[in-house]
């Protein structure tokens, strides 16, 4: 800690930061543009000037950039000396020379950091008479709009896109007052984290195109603290709505998960909520009339209750909906009849994993831990596609060696450009073991492309080397290289996933993780899961109650009633397999958002609320239970699953019921605060306009805002913007209208948002003392290394961020980025399969067949081929290939 004097007042501040950061943490207004809490300082914009005095005698002081000056004990500074005020005014005047006065039509208007800083600087009058510099804009794909004329050249975008997220198709061009930020030519921004440009840009150069489609001003948005449900990481978000339309998603800072950044799927994949085929009311199939009838909510509720009581019922829960919905369904049909919508393999892997965490054999690490590690081994998972935000953190991990070296030279981590100059090519080692080339390879010291069987062998070899159970002389060079880095690491981490089709691979990885953890207690372990609530669903489900056993049971003795909660079985099963099964069932009840292929076969179809329209909790990959608060009320006909299943139990009673039934979830109710007398928080801003008018098209009477007894937030501008124990529903602070206002809500810079709940960590404390016994060695479980029959090929998943997640795959912007489905294999394998020269291949499997275009990808190892994830799930992993005509 250091004591510094600002404008005559003494303050205690941390020393590992710069003066700008220190002022932010103290809540003092110092304007800035180019500094970013995650990206550090580069001193380019020159807006954050303050006066620094040599000592108490010095009355003159010297103009200093606060972002470039480390905090040292005894510093004396003034924030608003006349020369500083004039300098900042001039700085804004200089920026405004070319900035267009298009605020009324600019989407950043009202939440523009440049507007805020202009006001803060006091600049009001344009003196320059000359013309403005103009630029041609680029098409940057379906996500991001580009308006270069607004650019103030703070360099944040290129520092974020190129330096932070590793993007290669975006840069700064030209020089002087003609600098241009964009791509070398028009085209989609390729990086999976491009959407953060919208938040990183302090003005309206990069805007959210999906938001533009249904744009309203920030002050008219209704928001709530929520979480992203598009992968297993549980990134924190602010969904924002007006008039029943979800308008956009922005980042909500969580220090241990997403930090300041989201992936593009999480940010832009929300429009399914507004889908034209979104179910609006209950439907019932009328077999006699051969019609489908709209029914009332009461009728639907009644019908569901009858069906649930029928002689035999089977229900499938959902890994993408909340714990509460799944729990309510399980209560309705009974544990014995409740199944998870994931395969036996996947469920078993999740349960093995969570046991390891439970028994303290393996840590369950956060992304924050990952970012502070110094060596990472990524095994068998194309993480950029399956749990994207991890990839961004892995990339940051590789920068730690450079930061370390800089620290030795007295350069702090926030001195971004200096650290990069010092570290140059120096990287903390990231080793990748994968079945094909990945988007992270450029950050890795080495990527080994191996078949799953080879991967298992290598991992066992690494494990054996670490255990000293084999002689280094006989080990492969690859294994030795990886072991060398793992052994020298102070804080190594393993990253993997259960997505892969090889159960043995995860077991071997777990084994390796345990070994490493025994040798080094700072070892980290991350295993990505297939869906947002895979872990939560696994908690509620017995291992043998998975999709495979459910289908077998349906085949053997079809239940009278099948209840499917928010899951589209056609994603996992081929039509050939599924249709006959469903045909044998008398009553199929489907609850979902959209008219999915499964929903089309429903006899009773019930519309459910999306994540944005209900309260719920999700358990992320690390076993962190997090709450999502409803952002806006759904029409009465659209209900959360738990209300369909049990309309009598209110949300909080349900939470208590969950806590009573599930020992691990006993503190679940603490995540949610019910409404209390007197103290409310507003979901809408105090400036929200036209509350009476917004629905006047349909009803001229002003309607009472819908009540929300289950949370302290109101669906209206009434109430406080913040309360001590509650996270804010949106970020907005006097003088700080943009998302940069976050600094006014954080406990400190890079600290949590005040009042926010970090989530309940299920695996935080091991319930059993760490065991030093090794469990069954991984190499005895090499089921996937079984030889594949002659003439056959093993299919592996070709994961894709914009194809694999169900709900976002209905979103038009996401679809524009979905790659063409193809089968990928190496040229040698194509020749061996006698398919050389073919444009398309027919893939034949017992469960069905399909035809796909052939792509040559020489990074794919022999004996395997990659196909889109859902096709792999439908076809199974062992197939035959032939030329398609």
């Amino acid at each position, binding site marked *: 800690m250091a004591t510094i004097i600002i404008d005559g007042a003494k303050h205690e501040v941390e020393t590992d930061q710069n003066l700008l950061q220190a002022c932010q943490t103290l809540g003092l207004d110092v304007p800035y543009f180019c500094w970013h809490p995650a990206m550090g300082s580069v001193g380019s914009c020159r807006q954050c000037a303050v006066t620094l005095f040599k000592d108490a005698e010095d009355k003159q002081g010297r103009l200093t950039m606060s972002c470039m000056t480390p905090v040292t004990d005894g510093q004396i500074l003034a924030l608003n000396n006349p020369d500083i005020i004039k300098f900042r005014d001039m700085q804004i005047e200089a920026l405004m020379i070319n900035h267009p006065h298009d605020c009324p039509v600019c989407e950043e208007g009202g939440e523009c950091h440049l507007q805020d800083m202009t006001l803060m600087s006091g600049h009001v009058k344009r003196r320059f008479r000359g013309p403005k510099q103009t630029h041609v804009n680029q098409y940057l794909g379906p996500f991001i709009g580009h308006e270069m004329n607004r650019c103030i050249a703070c360099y944040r975008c290129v520092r974020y896109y190129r330096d932070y997220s590793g993007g*290669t198709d975006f840069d700064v061009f030209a020089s002087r007052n003609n600098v241009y930020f964009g791509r070398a030519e028009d085209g989609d921004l390729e990086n999976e984290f491009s959407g953060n440009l919208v938040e990183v840009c302090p003005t309206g150069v990069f805007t959210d195109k999906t938001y533009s489609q249904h744009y309203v001003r920030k002050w008219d948005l209704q928001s709530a603290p929520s979480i992203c449900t598009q992968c297993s990481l549980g990134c924190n978000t602010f969904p924002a709505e007006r008039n029943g339309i979800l308008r956009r998603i922005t980042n909500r800072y969580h220090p241990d998960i997403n930090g300041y950044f989201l992936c593009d799927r999480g940010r832009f994949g929300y429009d399914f909520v507004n889908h034209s085929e979104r179910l609006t009311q209950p439907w019932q199939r009328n077999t006699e009339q051969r019609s489908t009838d709209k029914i009332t909510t009461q009728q639907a509720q009644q019908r569901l209750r009858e069906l649930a009581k029928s002689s035999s019922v089977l229900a499938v829960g959902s890994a993408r909906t909340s714990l509460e919905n799944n729990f309510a369904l399980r209560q309705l049909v009974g544990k014995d009849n409740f199944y998870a919508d994931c395969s036996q393999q996947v469920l078993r892997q999740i349960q093995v994993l969570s046991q390891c965490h439970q028994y303290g054999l393996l840590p369950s690490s956060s992304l924050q831990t990952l970012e502070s590690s110094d060596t990472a081994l990524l095994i068998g998972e194309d993480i950029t596609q399956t749990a994207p935000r991890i990839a961004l953190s892995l990339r940051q991990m590789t920068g730690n060696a450079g930061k370390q070296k800089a620290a030795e030279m007295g350069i702090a981590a926030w001195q971004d450009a200096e650290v990069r100059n010092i570290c*140059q*090519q120096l990287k903390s080692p990231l080793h990748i073991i994968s079945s094909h080339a990945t988007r992270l390879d450029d950050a890795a010291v080495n990527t080994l492309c191996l078949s799953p069987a080879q991967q298992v062998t290598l991992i066992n070899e690494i494990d054996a080397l670490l255990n000293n159970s084999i002689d280094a002389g006989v080990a492969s060079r690859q294994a030795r290289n990886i072991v060398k880095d793992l052994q020298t690491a102070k804080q190594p981490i393993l990253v993997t996933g259960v997505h892969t089709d090889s159960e043995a691979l995860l077991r071997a990885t777990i084994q390796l993780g345990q070994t490493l953890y025994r040798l080094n207690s700072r070892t980290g372990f991350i295993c990505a899961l297939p869906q947002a609530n895979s872990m939560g669903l696994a908690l509620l489900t017995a291992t043998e109650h998975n999709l495979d056993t459910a289908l077998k049971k349906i085949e053997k003795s079809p239940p009278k009633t099948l209840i499917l909660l928010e899951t589209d079985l056609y994603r996992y099963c081929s039509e050939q397999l599924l249709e006959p099964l469903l045909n044998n069932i008398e009553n199929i009840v489907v609850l979902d958002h959209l008219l999915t292929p499964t929903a089309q076969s429903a006899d009773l179809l019930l519309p459910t609320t999306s994540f944005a329209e209900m309260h719920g909790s999700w358990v992320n990959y690390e076993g962190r239970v997090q709450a999502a608060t409803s952002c806006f009320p759904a029409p009465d006909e659209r209900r959360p699953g738990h209300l369909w299943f049990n309309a009598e139990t209110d949300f909080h009673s349900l939470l208590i019921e969950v806590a009573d039934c599930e020992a691990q979830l006993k503190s679940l109710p603490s995540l949610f605060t019910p409404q209390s007398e007197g103290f409310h928080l507003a979901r809408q801003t105090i400036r929200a306009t036209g509350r009476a008018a917004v629905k006047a098209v349909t009803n001229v009477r002003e309607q009472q805002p819908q009540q929300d007894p289950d949370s302290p937030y109101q669906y209206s501008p009434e109430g406080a913007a913040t309360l001590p124990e509650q996270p804010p529903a949106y970020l907005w602070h006097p003088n700080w209208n943009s998302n940069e206002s976050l600094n006014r809500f954080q406990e400190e810079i890079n600290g949590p948002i005040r009042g926010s709940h970090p989530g309940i960590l299920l695996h935080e404390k091991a319930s059993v003392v760490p065991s030093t016994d090794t469990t069954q060695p991984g190499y005895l479980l090499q089921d996937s290394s079984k030889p594949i029959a002659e003439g056959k090929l093993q299919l592996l998943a070709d994961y894709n961020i914009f194809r694999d997640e169900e709900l976002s795959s209905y979103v038009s912007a996401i679809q524009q980025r979905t790659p063409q489905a193809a089968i990928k294999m190496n040229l040698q394998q194509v020749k061996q399969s006698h398919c050389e020269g073919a*444009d398309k291949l027919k893939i034949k499997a017992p469960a069905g067949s399909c035809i796909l275009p052939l*792509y*040559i990808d020489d990074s794919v190892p022999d004996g395997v081929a990659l196909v889109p994830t859902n096709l792999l799930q439908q076809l199974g992993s062992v197939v035959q290939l032939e030329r398609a005509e």
Partner: protein
Amino acid sequence: MTDINDNNNVQIVQLTEQERSELDHMLDHYPVASGASIDALKMIQKFHGWVSDQHLAALASYMQIPVAELESVATFYNLIFRKPVGDNLVHPCDGFSCMVMGYRKVHQNLKQALNVNDGETTGDKSYTLIPLPCLGACDKAPVLLINDMLYENVNPDDVDDIIQTVSERTVTTKVHSS
């Protein structure tokens, strides 16, 4: 059958053997490939007069650095030409010493003689006029650089003659090389 690495947007230009060998030589001088970016761009310019999109892409691919990164460097420097230029580059010095000593007249006469404005190329693609700041020969101001030939103490009235001489030499070189 499609190669996954194909990029169909840009028409691919192959580097010549000589270009590749010069590039290899340059890459040897630097610990990382991007170090040779400026040398590489100038090498392309030496052979082709300017750097086309296709050549930029070919260089980036050979050096295994992103096109955007190379373009970022190329557009930063004044003397990397991303648009075609004429056979002869005419650079009158517009530094302040030359300005004092009569640059304006030299410049005016050049524009007339070539019938172009700054940054433009003559219709026959022979000349591109680009004034450059101080050429470091202020004691001989005004000066004029044409290709790598520096004309000192230029008399504005001699501009036509100078251009004439250059044209004749260009013709001769062309005859010799054909």
